[in-house]
């Protein structure tokens, strides 16, 4: 699978960017020690003018590079945590609905419908407004709008798997239905869900940025969306304050999509074969 992926140029570009991002996120405290919100120099130093502050400073004199590095950490954390929550919850609900069938299925899928009707972003907005902005709340808020996709996918997969011979034989051996669902069916329902999870990660990073842009991010950590929002007031006089974190955001989301696309293609190709 990895070898197949490595043959695809989009996967190589996306993967390289993604690896870089994850490395920066993981090594943020080493790359840029200290508090990224510390005041590092004069305010509004343009990029590439001061070797000590290569990307310049914002309105309060905070280093843009430090913000970018630590912002990557926030973005990756949010993306991964909310995707994990969304996939876990979605898989559990989807498998339960698909495997149990009947009223349970009906009931659970109507809940899924209810969540799908409300746009995910509005849901996140409402949730954060009520619960107050902190990193965990934001991650949960984003997952709240993202778990329905995995739920539908895994349900569809479970519905077909449920009738498979190996499930019937597991029943005959007297295995408990919950055990069948968790140990026999769920692992097989996982691959298509994993393929969409990259989309969820990318969506989560974008949603977090949008929330921060609206002032609903955690104010005690740096976020790219928050940086863009703060730069917006100076858009005419210091556009780089918004453009640089904006580019980081674009690069991140594009790289995740590229990798996700490639993974999806490879999986689909295999299935066709």
């Amino acid at each position, binding site marked *: 699978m990895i070898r197949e992926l490595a043959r695809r140029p989009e996967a190589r570009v996306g993967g390289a960017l993604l690896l870089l991002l994850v490395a920066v996120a993981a090594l943020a405290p080493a790359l840029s020690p200290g508090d990224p919100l510390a*005041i590092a120099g004069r305010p509004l130093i343009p990029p590439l003018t001061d070797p000590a502050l290569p990307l310049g400073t914002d309105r*309060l004199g905070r280093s843009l590079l430090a913000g970018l590095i630590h912002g990557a950490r926030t973005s990756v954390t949010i993306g991964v945590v909310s995707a994990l929550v969304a996939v876990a919850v979605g898989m559990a609900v989807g498998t339960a609905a698909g495997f149990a069938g009947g009223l349970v299925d009906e009931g659970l899928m109507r809940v899924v419908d209810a969540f799908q009707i409300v746009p995910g972003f509005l849901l996140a907005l409402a949730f954060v*407004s009520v619960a107050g902005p902190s990193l965990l709340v934001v991650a949960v808020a984003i997952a709240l709008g993202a778990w329905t996709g995995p739920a539908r996918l895994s349900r569809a997969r479970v519905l077909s798997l449920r009738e498979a011979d190996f499930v019937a034989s597991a029943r005959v051996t007297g295995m408990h239905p919950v055990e069948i669902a968790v140990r026999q069916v769920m692992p097989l329902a996982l691959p298509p869900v994993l393929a969409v999870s990259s989309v969820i990660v990318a969506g989560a990073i974008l949603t977090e940025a949008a929330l921060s842009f609206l002032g*609903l991010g955690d*104010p*005690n950590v740096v976020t790219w969306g928050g940086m863009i929002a703060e730069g917006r*007031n*100076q858009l*005419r006089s*210091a556009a780089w304050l918004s453009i640089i974190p904006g580019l980081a955001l674009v690069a991140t989301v594009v790289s995740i999509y590229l990798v996700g696309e490639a993974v999806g293609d490879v999986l689909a190709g295999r299935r066709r074969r």
Partner: protein
Amino acid sequence: MRALFSRRLISRRSLLGSAAALLGSTALPRLGFAAGAVRLVAAADSEPRQLNPAIVASNGVFFIASKVIEPLAEASYDDGGLRPLLATGWEGSEDGSSVTFALREGVSWHDGKPFTSADVAFSAMEVWKPLQNIGRGVFANLEAVDTPDDHTAVFRFAKPMPLQLIANALPVVSAVLPKHVYEGTDIAENPANAALVGTGPFVWGEHRPGEYYLLRKNPAYWNAGEPRVDEVVFRVLPDRAAAASSLEAGEIQLAAFSAVPLVELDRIGKVPGLEVVTKGYEALTYQLVVEINHRNEHLKELKVRQAIAHAIDKAFVLDTIFLGYATAATGPVPANAPEFHTDDVTIYDFDVAKANALLDEAGFARGADGTRVALRLLPAPYFNETKQFGDYLRRALAAIGIDATIVANDSAGHQKAVYTEHAFDLAIAPTVFRGDPAISTTILVRSGVPDGVPFSNQGGYANAEIDRVVDEALVTLDPGARVELYHQFQRLVTADLPLINVADWSFTSVASDRVENIATNPRWAVSNWADVGLAD
């Protein structure tokens, strides 16, 4: 002071709304108007829910409503500080028990009925005293208003009332409502609160939510020759970047209350045809204040409060956050209120070493991670500057071993957390000095304020000496003695630090150079604009 949350600024909701407003902006006022009509278009950054200035005395309401409903007198740069509007003169009795107003004759309401002393008596007794946010305090001892004739109103007070205080409060508290419209109705819910009826130079036109307010010239205005423009349109532009570009595009001629962000002023000042005006807000001084919850076991120690005061670099705040458009505060009364201000107070220089020493003395040693105490910090969300100062203060406190966690709320959440639930340790507030410390300043430190009153002492602070001075000044008639009491008040507050005053700031206007008579009085943005003209 309700001002702020009704009008200010980037609350999350207004931001969402602003996106919608931008989308809708192409549909803006293409109202039909007579050929040759002179229309002044100004930016408004919010739409207050309650537009009646006699009920909500706040700058956000006055900005629009003061053009329709007038007070008894307006602030003025001239000696005495007041320009008569609906009252032509006022005189206090020697014992301070009454104030007699002579009212202007020949004034009529926009619906044609004559303006009389009955309107003033009704407004004072039925609206200002029981309903108005500021009048409630200023007129607490008002017993009755006598109307010996149609153009005389005598205010009678239960306790001696300093004429100085009444005069200073007049522009803010005395918007007169028509008795015949409001009598016998639920005043707070009267439809005239949305479609105002007044005596002012402009008549209410219409309000399209999310789009604009339209006011038309009052042809029967009492001051012949005014107003000088035919229409005033307040275009709703909650997005500050939009205000700047609309000015440059010539779609609006005026953006007041710093609707154009400070960082843009340098650039926009150089745009031909536009000018930056910093005058006209002298009587609307905002104060950047660190509110302190004295229930906190650390903050109730004076040394900790002194350490925080020493940790704040006011020069950085002025230069970087306010870009020079502010002055360092010495205490609770700003320097541009020379009548009451004194420099003879305790000053806290920026001195991190001293701050650390004070905290050591107070017995709060640094832990293994360098932290002495952890606090919650709630910056008010109404202004960019209060939020930026929150970011700065967090860093400044880190330098002295105080780990502050910023708690961000929207306007309503902030109000509730700080002023009702007291769920804060430090908060950052933009309080307003309104020409007299008794109007909205002493309430910030006076004990015994009920929970839930915004912009008041909700930090649980009680100091019998300060309370005594505050109460005595309220009934001291001699202006000199009263001023001396307020000097003492400033000394006491800066010595004991119930709150920390950091900076005093005012606003700027950006206007087309066609607009005439900008900043003609110290409350210009919230005055009636009768003399404002628009050159061709």
